[in-house]
């Protein structure tokens, strides 16, 4: 008998998408899928998903257990309180030991406050961590929404997974136009199509793929060579200012200087830096460090096992809303790179590292 393990930090996935983009349809599918049998799903309203035929047990007013093993709850009032309640019930053994939380956000919500709540709440931050952000985009109306609403662009920009819904209802040309547009805003979130027979719910929440493969993909993909790519709409009236670009730098990065620079940038322009994601070559370190930030919030940096290939350049993807890309690049190069003389740049630090690993 294997006791289900509760992870030290339970990931919280955020499901977002514009009004009418098929979020609820996708959610209804997730609730029934065995891949989420160990999850608790927080939704806005029981009525809208239509759970009756999946229902196994009603735990209380706001919580039900479904056939798939999934725990489904509605949020009344504060999200943080709902998550704390779940946590408390799990600790006391009143609900099955879920290992993941999926939160449905409303169609107009900026996903950032939810992520920030998880990181800053004094209770939540010790038990939960942000997982993938999943954004649904509707193939029929998505292109128009992206042209007209900032919220829609932001939702796409922060996504770790993009799901195209209603692709079967839209002409193929519209779908490919939408894909191109999405790629322009968010070059490296994997794109999934909900109507695709191979659509895999587990791939939505699988994170290794998210951080690692996404970083690799952008290095080998079409964004690799050009240091700056402007990827806004093609001069329409509602031209979106959301721009994504990739920087590759040869020179190693000074971690402390980079930290001071990025904090400074986020302090002043955090609401316009929708996304920072990259793999950094840190001076004095053998292994690369992956960083990942959404607006004012930077996730805990991850030491990767090894470099994905021979290329030792640092690569950073920025998705910004209305910032001057050229200035940003110059600023980064002026302030964040390691300027110490080449000979002693890594010497003493490396020996310290060895000492640490041997002790």
């Amino acid at each position: 008998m294997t006791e289900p393990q509760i992870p030290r930090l339970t990931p919280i996935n955020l499901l977002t998408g514009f009004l009418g983009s098929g979020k609820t349809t996708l959610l209804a599918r997730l609730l029934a899928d065995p891949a989420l049998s160990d999850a608790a799903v927080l939704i806005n309203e029981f009525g809208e998903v239509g759970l009756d035929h999946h229902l196994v047990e009603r735990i209380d007013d706001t919580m039900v257990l479904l056939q798939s093993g999934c725990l489904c709850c509605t949020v009344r009032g504060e999200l943080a309180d709902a998550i704390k309640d779940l946590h408390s019930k799990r600790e006391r053994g009143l609900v099955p030991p879920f290992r993941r939380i999926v939160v449905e956000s409303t169609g107009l919500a900026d996903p950032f406050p939810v992520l920030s709540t998880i990181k800053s709440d004094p209770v939540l931050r010790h038990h939960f961590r942000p997982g993938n952000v999943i954004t649904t985009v509707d193939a029929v109306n998505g292109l128009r929404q992206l042209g007209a609403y900032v919220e829609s662009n932001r939702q796409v920009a922060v996504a770790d997974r993009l799901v195209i819904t209603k692709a079967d209802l839209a002409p193929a040309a519209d779908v490919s136009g939408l894909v191109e547009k999405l790629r322009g805003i968010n070059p490296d979130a994997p794109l999934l199509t909900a109507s695709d027979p191979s659509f895999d719910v587990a791939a939505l929440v699988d994170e290794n793929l998210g951080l690692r493969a996404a970083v690799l993909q952008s290095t080998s993909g079409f964004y690799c060579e050009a240091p700056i790519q402007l990827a806004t709409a093609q001069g329409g009236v509602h031209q979106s200012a959301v721009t994504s670009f990739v920087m590759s730098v040869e020179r190693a990065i000074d971690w402390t200087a980079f930290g001071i620079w990025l904090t400074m940038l986020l302090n002043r322009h955090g609401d316009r830096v929708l996304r920072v994601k990259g793999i950094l070559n840190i001076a004095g370190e053998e292994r690369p460090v992956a960083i990942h930030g959404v607006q004012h919030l930077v996730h805990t940096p991850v030491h990767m096992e090894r470099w994905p290939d021979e290329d030792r350049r640092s690569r950073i993807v920025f998705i910004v809303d209305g910032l001057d890309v050229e200035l940003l690049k110059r600023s980064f190069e002026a302030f964040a790179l390691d300027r110490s003389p080449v000979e002693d740049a890594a010497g003493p630090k490396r020996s310290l590292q060895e000492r640490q690993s041997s002790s």
Partner: protein
Amino acid sequence: MCSLCGVLGGNEHWADAVARPGVYTRNVERIDRRRERANRVRIANAMLARFGLTISDWQGASFVLATRTGKSEIIEDLGHLWPAAERLCGRPCDPLDPGLIAAAEAAIDD
């Protein structure tokens, strides 16, 4: 600091979380820890000098940020650095300011 409401005493700063000598430890490797802090102070000072500010280590626990006239503020970690710096020097500290970038580029070329 909570990034929504600006309340102090929130999370540890992300820049502290990369494992390297003197970063994760609290009880061992005293020398490495001090060296890492000294290095941070040095790098932060290079940046803050452009705004007429200085930073110094305070008891290995906090930092003291000060203007040339002696107005000062204690900050917990680098996450609090820039809001405090802006309060003290009375103007925005913008890394995308073309003048600031040009000055830094000129300093590198020298």
